[in-house]
Every structure is written in structure tokens, then in C-alpha cells.
């Protein structure tokens, strides 16, 4: 990519079988199969029906992964999404308790998320010297703070009429609605990032924002749009969170930003920008979901599962770098 010679702007990728298998996505698919076989051997209740039944509560985080992938490709980061989920879940619960038609509740949930995303985007485009990490750190504290104020001293709200939320938690046969929704959103996001001009511009900005700006990319507009979409999808995630817990509290969605980033990075999307694609991110998300369900079924300590995920994350990023370094060292040695 960028930096090496700068001359080969678009090298045509070779689609050989070997390349497909040894690409990171190929490794992930193999890992996905391996994880499933592993889970089936350790747990006798690990089958399609049970997995689909337990999936909804983990799937909601994939909504966050999709726009997070765009932000990471930009070379930026948004750590406020967990708090957006919290605020949006709180507000939609409260609105729902007022007895407003359910369609309005959904709209309110998404609108709150979008508004939060717009705040992030507006600050980041207005003062583009600021690192996104700091701005979203501040808004992370602010959004959760607003939710805390709204929730009052009790710190939680529960639904008095859960009919609407029970409806969106429904399923076709054994497959929950959220599964279809996740797949549809994932395909749309993957196509936008991989196949459209917009997606190429995002990569260009991630590789070198200044160059992209000088070659006519509307840098500000694109950044604002992506942060806003991030907020909107956090709103959708919040609705599904409410539909699985029938309420919200001050810790709703805490740590989701880290989970979403971990999924994306594990899927080969570099946090330094300009690299990776959504297919990898989505496969890795399903690997993590399956691993969590499988290990949860054998009553493994949830903390131990987090430990395994942490080790996997670090290895996934460190190993390719270490291998590349060793190869490089060998090349230098053979040249001598």
C-alpha cells in the first residue's frame, strides 16, 4: 500500500486459490469452522437451534462494528458509542413508558443516537486538529452522564409495557429478526466500503487525509456523515439491547466500544487506517459470538472468556507483524 514506492497506485489483485486461503479472511473462515467444532466437542448442547436462541444479545454489538470499521479505516476511533447506546436505551425506555405508539419509540431511539453522533461529528470536523480519541472520551463521559441524570438516583428504568420491544425480539422459525437485520446491514456496509466511490474515498482518507483533501475528497463531509451513521446504528443497537433486557440502567452498553473495536481489529482492520475490509470484521464478529456462546454453555467463568478474547486480540495483531519482521530480517541476512 502507501509508503513503499508510491508508484503502483492500484495493483490488480490476483485471485488465486492460494492467495484466498492464506489471506487473513481465509484464516478467519478456517478459524470460524475450528471454533464451531471446538465448541461442539466441549458442549453437547451446542447446536444451531441453541446458538440462534442465544445469539440476539450478542448480535446487537455487530451494529456497532459496521460503522466502527469505517471509522477505523479512516484511522480514527470512537470510544463514545457505548455511552450513546446507554443514552439512547434510556430515552427510548422512558418514552415507551409514556405510552407513545411503538413506531415513535423506535424513531426516538434512533434519533437520539443520531443526534449524539452528530455532536461527535460536528466537533471533530469543526476542530479537526483534535484527536478523535480525546473528543469521544469527553462525549463518552457526557452522554453517559446525561443518561445518569435522566435516570435519577435510582439508576435504572424498566419497561412498564414491553409489547413493542417483545415484538422486535421475535423470530421467524428459529431465526431471530435481528439476525436478518444484521446480515442486511452488514452486506450494505460491506458493499459501500468495498465497492463504491464513497468507500474508496474512505480508504484514501485513511491512507493520507491531506492527499485525499487535495485530490478533491470532501473530507469534512465524509467524516461528519460517518460519525452520524455511527450514532444512528448505536441507536438501533440500543433498541435491541432494550428488547433483550426490558429496561436500561447506567451500565447499559458499557464496554461495547471496546468489543466493537476488538471485533474489527481481530478481523484485520488496522486501527492506523487505510487497511482491512468488512468481510474480515464480520467473520471475526461471528467467531467471537460463537466462542462466547460455546464457552458460556459449559459455564466457563465469564472473566476467563474475556481473558481468552484479550489474548486472541493481541495475537491477531502481533503475529502478522512479528512474522513480517522475521521475514524482513531474513531477507536482509541473505542479501549480505
Amino acid at each position, binding site marked *: 500500500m502507501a509508503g513503499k514506492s508510491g508508484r503502483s497506485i492500484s495493483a490488480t489483485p490476483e485471485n488465486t486459490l492460494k492467495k484466498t486461503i492464506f489471506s487473513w479472511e481465509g484464516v478467519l473462515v478456517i478459524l470460524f469452522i475450528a471454533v464451531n467444532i471446538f465448541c461442539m466437542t466441549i458442549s453437547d448442547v451446542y447446536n444451531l437451534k441453541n446458538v440462534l436462541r442465544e445469539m440476539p444479545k450478542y448480535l446487537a454489538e455487530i451494529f456497532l462494528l459496521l460503522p466502527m470499521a469505517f471509522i477505523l479505516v479512516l484511522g480514527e476511533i470512537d470510544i463514545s458509542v457505548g455511552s450513546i447506546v446507554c443514552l439512547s436505551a434510556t430515552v427510548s425506555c422512558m418514552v415507551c413508558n409514556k405510552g407513545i405508539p411503538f413506531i415513535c419509540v423506535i424513531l426516538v431511539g434512533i434519533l437520539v443516537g443520531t443526534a449524539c453522533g452528530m455532536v461527535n461529528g460536528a466537533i471533530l470536523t469543526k476542530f479537526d486538529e483534535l484527536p478523535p480519541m480525546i473528543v469521544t472520551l469527553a462525549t463518552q463521559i457526557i452522554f453517559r452522564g446525561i443518561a445518569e*441524570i435522566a435516570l435519577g438516583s435510582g439508576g435504572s428504568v424498566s419497561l412498564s409495557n414491553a409489547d413493542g420491544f417483545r415484538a422486535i425480539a421475535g423470530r421467524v422459525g428459529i431465526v431471530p429478526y435481528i439476525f436478518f437485520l444484521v446480515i442486511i446491514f452488514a452486506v450494505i456496509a460491506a458493499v459501500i466500503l468495498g465497492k463504491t466511490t464513497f468507500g474508496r474515498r474512505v480508504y484514501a482518507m485513511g491512507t493520507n487525509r491531506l492527499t485525499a483533501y487535495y485530490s478533491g475528497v470532501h473530507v469534512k463531509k465524509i467524516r461528519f456523515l460517518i460519525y452520524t451513521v455511527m450514532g444512528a446504528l448505536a441507536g438501533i443497537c440500543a433498541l435491541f439491547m432494550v428488547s433483550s433486557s426490558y429496561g436500561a440502567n447506567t451500565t447499559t452498553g458499557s464496554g461495547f466500544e471496546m468489543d466493537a473495536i476488538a471485533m474489527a481489529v481481530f478481523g484485520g482492520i488496522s486501527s492506523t487506517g487505510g487497511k482491512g475490509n468488512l468481510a474480515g470484521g464480520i467473520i471475526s464478529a461471528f467467531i467471537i459470538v460463537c466462542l462466547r456462546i460455546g464457552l458460556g454453555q459449559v459455564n466457563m467463568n465469564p472473566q476467563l472468556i474475556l481473558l481468552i478474547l484479550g*489474548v486472541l486480540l493481541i495475537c491477531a495483531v502481533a503475529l502478522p507483524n512479528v512474522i513480517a519482521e522475521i521475514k524482513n530480517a531474513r531477507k536482509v541476512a541473505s542479501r549480505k
Partner: protein
Amino acid sequence: MEKKSIMKKITGSREALLLVVLILLCAAVSLRSPSFLSVQSIMEMLKNNAVTMIMSLGMLCVMLVGGIDISIMSTLAFAGMSVGMLLKYGHVSSTLLCFLIAMGIGIICGFLVGLVISRAAVPPIIATMGFMYIYRALAYLVGNSEWAGADALGSFKDFALGSILGLNNVIWVTIICYVIFFFFMKWTRTGRKIYAVGSNPSAAEVSGINVKNIKLLVYSIMGFLGGLGGALAVSIYASAQPNMQYGKEMDVIAACVIGGVSMSGGRGTVIGALLGSLILSVIAKALPIIGFESIYQNTIKGVIILVVVVVNVVMQRASDKNNLKGREM
């Protein structure tokens, strides 16, 4: 070079500006409640925020080389839990030994983080995110779903109650850390190397600094302070729980950012980190006094961070414009 006027010095130096803000803040709060500036209340505030204040020194070093570490509070919990469990089951009873063990665990944790970041070239935010999960999980596993209460800790909790020359032990530790770091960052070779790596890594590399080792050192320092913070937190709060200080790493980062430490590295001072964490703790203490309920605290804290960074950018832009004007003449 002509002499700068005092006024210009104050507006020009970030630290002086922060000091003015801090003094104004204290004055405003003490108008409302005179007891705020009593010696006892200040000592209480310093003691309760000692952990954040000490950790912000490590974060200063990490941010100076352009990194970030969000695993620190997990390191703290791991070290604190280990000490708590050792005390609970009577394996150790000496306070000094406990501190040494906690600091040792901290150094090892930090060293591992530094190894992954400097040798395997993993971006700091990703690596420390992974270690945040790992060390927090280890804290839970060490505890084995138990926690150490005040009676299990024995004489260890007396450390935070005792005082030398009228100052609480915890405050002494904080002061010693700050004095050491002030000299370390300003006048030692290694301290200057950290600044050099932060301002321009390739230039530092060319001039013979081992950038990788400096990064390793910086994260080890952070881990060391995390371990120290773990022992202190157990002693101050007289309990060791696996979820202690959960999410507080953001406070430490916020303190550094308010203190003028740049996220891109190379800019920031020990005094700045001190003032930043002092301002945060004064705000946290002052809000209930001026009549805000504690649920408003986080929102106000977030707004303050945002305002500080935005004001910083606006001022930077203005000074850039002024410099350009000077050139045109």
C-alpha cells in the same frame, strides 16, 4: 531576544494559565463554602485522589511518546487483588513486602504491554485494550470470586491512616513520586530521551536513541505506577475488589489532557499533569458543595474536558494567525 512581559508569560505558558484557573476555582468554591479550603479538607481531597494523581505521571510518560495506555486500572486491580488475597490468607503480613509485591506485579504487567507495543508494533490502543481484558480477568481469577475486606487486611490498611510530620503517608508517597518525576523528566538523560522520541521518533532513532527500548521503559514505568496505585488503593479504601477503579483510566487520561499533555506526543510537563489532576479533583469535590447532586458530576466533567481541548485549539489557531501576521509585515 527581548524580554517577555509578565502578562505575556502567563498567557503564553500553559501551566501558569492552569494555575490561575485552579486558584480561581478554589476561590469561587471557598466563597460559597469557607470550609473547603481548610487544611483537613484539602488533605482529605489529596488522599482520595492520590491514585489518580500518581497514575497520571505514568500516563504523562506514555502520552509523551505518542502512546496511550487504557490497561492501567486493570493492572491496578490485578496488583491490588494479589496483595489483598496474600494478606487475607496470611501469606504475608509486612506492609513493605506488600508494596514491593504489588510494584513487582505492576512492572511485569507493564513490561509485557511494552514488549507487545515496542517489539510487535501493535498500536498502543489495541494492545492495551487486550491487556485491559486480560489483567482485569486475572484480578477476578486471583480473587476466585472472593474479596478482601477491612478485617482481612490487618495492619496494611493502617498505612493510609498513619502520618509522618503531620502529613498522611499516602500524600508523602504522592509528593515523593512527583519530586522524583520532576527531576527525572527534566534533568536526566532518559527523561529527555522520552521527550525526543515523542517529538520526532525518526529523528530520535537517527540520533542514536533506541526508540524501542524507550517505549518499553515508558510502559514499564506505567505498570510500576499501576502496581503502586494498586497497593495504595487497597490501603486507602481498606478493601480489595476485582472491580476496583473500573473505568477510571479515563480520569487519568482526562487529567493529563487538561494538564496540556498532547495526544500526539512530545508535549507535556510534570507540573501540567499535577495541575490537571488537581483541577479534576477540586471539581469533583466542589460540585456537591455548590449544590450539584453527584449525578451531574460526570456530565460536568466531560463538558470541562471538551471545553479545555477546544479552547486550546482556538488559542493555538489564534497564535498561528498572529505569527503569520508578523511575517507579512
